[in-house]
């Protein structure tokens, strides 16, 4: 009965490869997010989707492409991986945006290592 789940939990790959991370939430939330956490623990939002519509698209290389097939899923596809993409990627969800109700709920994170 995990609220926000991500797969895979660990991803080790070589430069130049293409990879995807999947996220699913069973909280019935209408908004989902992708965050990147660097080695200094700084959390930076990448994308935000509300009802499958892209709301926030921060300055992220276009090698990163999110896809939301429905309200419960938000996947992240990364093309031509670079060393600097190594980080922990978190998926999160909330109802009605960050200002509403009980706030954001996070998945367990995906640790991406690019060699």
């Amino acid at each position, binding site marked *: 009965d995990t609220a926000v789940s991500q797969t895979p939990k660990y991803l080790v790959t070589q430069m130049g490869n293409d990879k995807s991370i999947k996220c699913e939430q069973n909280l019935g939330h209408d908004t989902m997010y992708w965050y990147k956490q660097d080695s200094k623990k700084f959390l930076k939002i990448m994308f*935000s989707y509300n009802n499958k519509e892209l709301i926030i698209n921060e300055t992220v290389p276009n090698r990163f492409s999110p896809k939301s097939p429905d309200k419960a899923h938000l996947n992240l596809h990364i093309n031509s991986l670079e060393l600097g993409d190594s980080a922990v990627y978190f998926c999160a969800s909330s109802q009605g945006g960050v*200002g509403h109700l009980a706030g954001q709920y996070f998945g367990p994170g995906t640790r991406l290592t690019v060699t």
Partner: protein
Amino acid sequence: GIQVEQSPPDLILQEGANSTLRCNFSDSVNNLQWFHQNPWGQLINLFYIPSGTKQNGRLSATTVATERYSLLYISSSQTTDSGVYFCAGPTGDSNYQLIWGAGTKLIIKP
């Protein structure tokens, strides 16, 4: 945009001690949230606290929105409280984006 400052950046305490973590905002914040990231990396939503005080077991949080700060209190610390504590609030420009502090790294020694 809004800036978020957390203090102290690091805190090392013995088990059983109490602690207060602070979060200052450069502008008023309607919907402040506190999160705990445990040593295994899991981010847990602790409090959604636009104003006033909330308590959950040994943890409590107080937000004084008019003075642009929030405090997180941890009483009778346990080693499982170790990790990084983040506060975050909406940017004001968007209801879909949180601005995050840099975190307070808390280490509780047995």
